[in-house]
């Protein structure tokens, strides 16, 4: 499989892998990765189609305000963790992504 490793793709991958087993939401991901929604959503879409992510809908909001519509969340699949892990390992060797990877150096050794 070959997904073009663009700068934004690596940014989204880092944000996803920062919490590999947790749920991710669009707004939170876009904040965390610094990628704007117009680029991030197509990236997530691509990952869904590859089977790297799985999505679902939150049942009911935990807070008392019942009027909220359900939120869509994304979770990494085992396949996705392996694939994105490989992407990040590759990115760490690529000079192009050096600023990204060093900024997230704390994450880098897991």
């Amino acid at each position, binding site marked *: *499989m*070959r997904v073009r490793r663009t700068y934004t793709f690596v940014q989204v991958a880092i944000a996803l892998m920062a919490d590999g087993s947790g749920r991710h939401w669009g707004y939170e991901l876009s904040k965390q990765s610094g990628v704007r929604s117009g680029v991030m959503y197509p990236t997530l879409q691509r990952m869904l189609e*590859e089977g790297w992510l799985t*999505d679902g809908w939150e049942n009911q909001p935990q807070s008392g305000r019942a009027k909220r*519509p359900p*939120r869509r969340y994304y979770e990494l*699949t085992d396949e996705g963790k392996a694939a994105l892990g490989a992407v990040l390992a590759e990115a760490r060797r690529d000079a192009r992504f050096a600023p990204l990877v060093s900024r997230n150096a704390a994450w880098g050794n897991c």
Partner: protein
Amino acid sequence: MLSLTFQTVTWPGLVATLLFWGFAPGAVLRLIILLFPKEDPRRRELLGELYAVPRIERPFWVIEQLEVGLFEGLRHRYARRNANDPVATPEGGEEGLLFGDELVAQPAAIGYRGPTACVAAGITYRQLDYWARTSLVEPSARAMQGSGEQRLYSFRDILVLKVIKRLLDTGISMNQIRAAVAHLRSRGAVDLAGVTLMTDGYSVYECTSPDEVVDLLQGGQGVFGVALGRIWKEVDETLSELPAERADGRSDELPPLRE
């Protein structure tokens, strides 16, 4: 100059603008999501996200979603319109080949469950489910109705699934794949066994004769080929060892209703 500014920015206009963008981001977002096709999950997703955005950021966030709507939403609409082009479906009880009747026909009444379709096409269940929900490949032998009913994929569906999987493996983008699938479906009477799809990783080319394949190769383009006739045989062989089901539901497998 100054007077011009004051003439164009009237008080009611200013108040309306402020109200619209500042205090009603929800209303604006509801307009933006109309850019997406009706059943696109992004519609509900963006609405749900709005309430996760801090109130003070909402107007800016909503403006940002205009880009999502314009680029992703309109593209999905366009892709869907192409995919909805009339598909030549034989009316009789026999289902022909994907786009013609050249190879041995499969009975239309036979369908395969999702997991079987996955095995035959070599994809994961998540991919199958996702492609069905985004109308790339929907189970045509029996569509999903309610929660209890099993989806059934026809032989034709599984063939398309396998072709998509092959193209995806070469790194082709999903948009290109959607376009290629729509194009192939619109070609009603093509001898499928003779079609080879060639790809350079960015575009999909359809070759109906060996000469065309050679032309592409000499042009330094085609680096990967998908011969539909061969995939047809592979799917046929795999499926012959897997369980099939009658699509009309008159199967004996249904458990008796318990009182």
